[in-house]
């Protein structure tokens, strides 16, 4: 299948927005203007944009841990300023300042985050079970990295999705690293996709630097799930330009990554590749591309302004105790 011009514009726009938000998060973390920690997604934003740009509002989503899901959420239509406010401890945050780096947008069917890698497989199997029971054509998008597939939960989640033919898409963003350890060291086969194939889940491997390539397979997988034909697995091979989390050294195994690796990676920057493509295909002009960058920069600036202008959440202990249980 081929993408329409409108779809390509959407993908390119969200990719640029993700790029601007990612750079802002990195900068703010370095400036001490974010609470907790941040795991940059730089270099690996294409799979999330592709996976989430064509979801419906009522499609449950587990955004990837890397990049703290910003790429995924903004592509799904969630206003990131409320997450940025949360990440700065403000009462206007999406979790009312309770969480720091967790997100919760139940109105968009993004219910939670967890610091545990591999935690994604458990709620999502329940989302998908619920979606199947409701029968309204909802699709669950479950995004996580190669490291998460080391968890037993990955097997259980895929097993149940396969057994029950659940409407779920497993988007595996394989950037070749789990923290510092390389994929080759920690996984016995060339592709994680074989795990899904072993459970009879249709699986594809795709170039994760190419947002349009990932989108083509993601749209097909979403469509398949929406028609009640069961789960799919996508392995997007992507690149991690930055360290695992800000403040740590960037290692390959237990030694610093080589300069050549960084230089080689930069040639496959997803925004550079997408820009070349939209220009070559005459989907967008350079002026239009510049306009998209400017709008993204403004959106980020507005989000920062909103977060910075908001009040720090300051409930009393009694008020906090009263919020442990739902009425």
């Amino acid at each position, binding site marked *: 299948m081929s993408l329409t011009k409108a779809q390509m514009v959407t993908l390119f726009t969200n990719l640029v927005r993700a790029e601007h938000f990612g750079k802002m998060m990195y900068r703010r973390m370095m400036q001490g203007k974010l609470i907790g920690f941040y795991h940059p997604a730089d270099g690996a934003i294409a799979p999330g944009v592709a996976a989430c740009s064509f979801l419906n509002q009522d499609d449950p989503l587990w955004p990837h841990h890397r990049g703290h899901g910003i790429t995924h959420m903004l592509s799904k239509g969630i206003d990131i300023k409320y997450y940025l406010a949360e990440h700065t401890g403000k009462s206007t945050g999406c*979790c009312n300042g309770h969480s720091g780096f967790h997100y*919760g947008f*139940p109105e968009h069917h993004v*219910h939670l985050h967890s610091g545990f890698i591999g935690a994604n497989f458990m709620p999502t199997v329940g989302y998908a079970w619920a979606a199947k*029971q409701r029968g309204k054509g909802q699709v669950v998008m479950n995004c996580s990295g190669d490291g998460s597939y080391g968890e037993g939960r990955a097997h259980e989640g895929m*097993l*149940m999705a396969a057994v029950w033919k659940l409407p779920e898409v497993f988007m595996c963003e394989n950037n070749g690293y789990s923290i510092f350890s390389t994929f080759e060291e920690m996984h016995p086969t060339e592709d994680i996709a074989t795990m899904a194939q072993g459970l009879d889940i249709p699986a594809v491997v795709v170039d994760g630097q190419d947002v349009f390539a990932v989108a083509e397979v993601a749209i097909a997988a979403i469509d398949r799930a929406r028609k009640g034909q069961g789960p799919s697995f996508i392995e997007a091979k992507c690149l991690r330009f930055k360290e695992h989390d800000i403040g740590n050294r960037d290692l390959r195994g237990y030694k610093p990554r080589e300069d050549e690796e960084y230089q080689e990676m930069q040639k496959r920057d997803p925004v550079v590749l997408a820009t070349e493509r939209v220009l070559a295909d005459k989907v967008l002009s350079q002026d239009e591309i510049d306009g998209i960058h400017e709008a993204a920069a403004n959106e980020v600036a507005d989000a920062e302004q909103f977060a910075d202008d908001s009040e720090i959440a300051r409930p009393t202990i009694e008020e906090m105790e009263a*919020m442990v*249980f739902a009425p």
Partner: protein
Amino acid sequence: MRELTYINAIREAIQQEMRADETVFMVGQDIRGGVYPHTKDLVDEFGEDRIVDTPLAETGMFGTAYGAALEGFRPIVDFMFGSCAFVNFNETSIMAGQQYFMHGAKHPLPLVMTAAVGMGKRIGNDHAMFIHSTFCRQPGIKVAMASTPYDAKGMFAQAIRDNNPVMIPWHTGVMQKREHVPEEPYYIPLGVADVKREGSDVTVLANSEQLYNALELAEELAGEISVEVIDPRSFVPFDLDTVLKSLAKTNRIVIVDEDWESCGMASTISARIVEHGFDLLDAPIRRVCLPNIPIPGGYMEDYTRPTKEKIEAAIRDVCA
């Protein structure tokens, strides 16, 4: 007067709540066939989409309930045995328990967890162990255990209607207890203790099979020592007021808990009594708990658990 066994009282609560609300469903391992009778034949009425058997994968099984609860369902998870709820402790306690608060206290997570617990059947550490104290330490989870068939029905029905994760295990030692249980639905609020027998010399706090030990003792000691027996019924929230009210009368208390002694519910209750009712005490608090040793699988089990003899010794000690 119609009578039901405890286990069938649970079954009736589940059945009536499932009839009343189509978002209620149950997930477990071989609950269609019914390893224990509380789910027996429910699949015939509600079908396999509402009495759901999963692969033997506790984490995925719980995940099914957890995710579905966030998407608007009201699941009941049956762990079969309590300790199976520790296989996925991250999901049960950290993710489910803390979900509501951590994500802004705006989206409820209605979810019931149940399982068989209890010593007396010589089934060893992994099948007999108690879990209520461990779950009581996890913020955001309500924890309750019914001791009688009447309470079992009302408390299970209430747990299913609660908008929070509720851990409500049941003790194999009481599953065949039988008494009058009304046919129409009724609801017992979680967080309300019940004075099962009034007395004036000493308060004994006991639950599940130990409640029956305490009641038998109270009967045997009547005339010599007047024993007030309270079933806490719910551990989180815990009804401290009823305990303090009793202490104002008896000034002595023995707390019986079949869970381990260390950092157990009996320790927490003792600490709260000291903090809030120290002046009411005429004698030190005594606890009768499971010593901190693994629950043996053989006859050694009998030597470890609280018994009538141990409770009587504690009563005589505080009344001396």
